[in-house]
C-alpha cells in the first residue's frame, strides 16, 4: 500500500476563491489527479494544499466561440473525444485523447491536466525507495542527472499526447490568477529544462484551451508505444500537410520541449524531423532506434494525412 503524504484540501466554488488559494505557497491544483496523485504517492512533490476544480462548472465543457473550440481545462479527455464538433473539426485532437493511457483513465483525466502534465523520465517516475537507491536526480532529491551526467540540466521528456496536435492546430491557453486573465500560445509555454518546463507563473490556473478553426490541409496524430494501452509514448508525433505542398511536424517525448519542424516540400518533412530530434536515455528503449523511428513515425503520419 502506497499512502499519500499529508496535505489539506479545498474545493473552491468561485474563480476568485480559486485564484486566492492558488496564490498560497505549497498549493497545487488537482484536476483528474491521474498524473498528480501517483506522483504524490511516489513522493515526487511536497505540496501541502491540494485545490480541487470539481465544483467549478465553468471549467468544464466544450463550446464554440466564433469558429474556435473553447475547452474548459477541467473537461475530461473522454468528453473531448466524444464531442462531435471536435471529431468533425479537429480530428487529430480526438485521436490524441483516445491514445492516452486507458479508457478508464480518459474518463478521469482532463485536457488541462494533459497540457500541464509533468515531464517524465525512467529515473524520476519511480517510488521514493527506488529513487533513493540511486541518490535521486536533479529533478527530485538529488544532484546529478543519470541521463546526461555531463549535461546542463534535466532532459525529462514531455509526454502529453494531445500537445503535438494542439500545437499544430495553433492552440491558445487561457490562464487566470489574482492579477487577471492572460492568454499564451501553447507553442510558447514549454521550456528546455525538465524541472522548469512550464512557462506560466506558479499561481496561474489554466482555465481553458482555445483551439482556432483548424488550418487548411490535414493534421494527423500518431503515438509510438510498446502496448496498445496504458503506456506513455516513446514518441508522440503530429503532422500538418498543407494545401500548398508544405508541411509541419511536432515530435515529442524527446525532451522537455516538443520539437517543431517545417519543410517547404512535405516530402522533406521526415528528414527534417529526424535531423532535429535528439532522443535521450529517458526511456527504456534505445536512443538510436528511437531516432530512426522519428523518421518512420513522421512518414506514417503523413501517409495517413
Amino acid at each position, binding site marked *: 500500500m502506497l499512502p499519500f503524504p499529508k496535505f489539506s*484540501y479545498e474545493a473552491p466554488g468561485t474563480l476568485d476563491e480559486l485564484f486566492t488559494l492558488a496564490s498560497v505557497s505549497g498549493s497545487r491544483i488537482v484536476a483528474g489527479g491521474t498524473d498528480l*496523485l501517483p506522483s504524490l504517492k511516489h513522493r515526487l512533490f511536497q505540496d501541502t494544499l491540494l485545490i*480541487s476544480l470539481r465544483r467549478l462548472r465553468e471549467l468544464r465543457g466544450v463550446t464554440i466561440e466564433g469558429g474556435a473550440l473553447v475547452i474548459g481545462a477541467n473537461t475530461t479527455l473522454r468528453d473531448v473525444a466524444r464531442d462531435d464538433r471536435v471529431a468533425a473539426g479537429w480530428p487529430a485532437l480526438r485521436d490524441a485523447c483516445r491514445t492516452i493511457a486507458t479508457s478508464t483513465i480518459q474518463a478521469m483525466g482532463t485536457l488541462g491536466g494533459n497540457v500541464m502534465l509533468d515531464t517524465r523520465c525512467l529515473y524520476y517516475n519511480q517510488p521514493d525507495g527506488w529513487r533513493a537507491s540511486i541518490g535521486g536526480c536533479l529533478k527530485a532529491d538529488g544532484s546529478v542527472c543519470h541521463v546526461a551526467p555531463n549535461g546542463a540540466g534535466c532532459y525529462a521528456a514531455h509526454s502529453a499526447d494531445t500537445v503535438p496536435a494542439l500545437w499544430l492546430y495553433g492552440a491558445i491557453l487561457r490562464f487566470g490568477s489574482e492579477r487577471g486573465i492572460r492568454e499564451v500560445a501553447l507553442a510558447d509555454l514549454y521550456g528546455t529544462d525538465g524541472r522548469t518546463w512550464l512557462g506560466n507563473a506558479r499561481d496561474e490556473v489554466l482555465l481553458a484551451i482555445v483551439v482556432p478553426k483548424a488550418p487548411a490541409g490535414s493534421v494527423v496524430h500518431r503515438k509510438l508505444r510498446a502496448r496498445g*494501452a496504458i503506456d506513455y509514448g516513446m514518441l508522440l508525433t503530429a503532422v500538418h500537410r498543407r494545401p500548398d505542398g508544405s508541411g509541419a511536424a511536432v515530435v515529442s517525448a524527446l525532451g522537455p520541449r516538443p520539437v517543431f519542424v517545417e519543410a517547404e516540400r512535405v516530402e522533406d518533412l521526415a528528414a527534417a524531423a529526424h535531423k532535429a530530434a535528439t532522443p535521450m536515455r529517458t526511456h527504456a528503449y534505445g536512443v538510436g532506434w528511437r531516432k530512426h523511428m522519428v523518421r518512420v513515425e513522421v512518414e506514417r503520419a503523413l501517409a495517413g494525412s
Partner: protein
Amino acid sequence: MPTEITLRLQINGEQVRRIIPANRSLLDFIREDLRLTGSKHGCDVGDCGACTVLVDGAPQLACITLAAECEGAAIRTIEGVTDGGGLHPIQEALHRHVGAQCGYCTPGIVMAMTSLLEADPHPSDSAINEALGSNICRCTGYTKILAAVREVARPGSPS
C-alpha cells in the same frame, strides 16, 4: 486549511457520512473505512485497474481518486453490482468461460465491463478491446474474458 473533511456520498445505494482525512484515497475509504474489500489493491498507482469502481456511472481507479473528490457522488463497487446479491450476467459469463483464475483482477474487470455495457449493451469487438485495455490480468491471457464479454454483448453469436 482543513486536513479533515466531512464526506457524504452514496455507496451501493446506501447514504454514508464520515469524517475522513483529506489525504484518504477512495480505495482506502472503501476497503478500510467501509470494510468493502471486493475492490482490490493492485499497483496502487493507476496502472492495473484492479481497484476500478463506478463513480456516477463512470469507471474510476479508486487508488488514485481522493475520497474527498467524491462528495455527493453515487459509487458502485463489486458488492453492489447487482441489487439482490445474485450474479451479474458478466460474472456468470466469466464463470462459464473460466475467465477468472486467481481472481484478483476480476472485480475491476466486472466493474469496467458493467460500465461499458450500461452505456452500450451491444459494443463492438473493438470497443470491448478498448475498454478491457484498462485492466491488467496476469493469469488468463484475456481470451476467456473477451469470450465472456462478447457472449453478454451479443448473445447467441459465436465467441
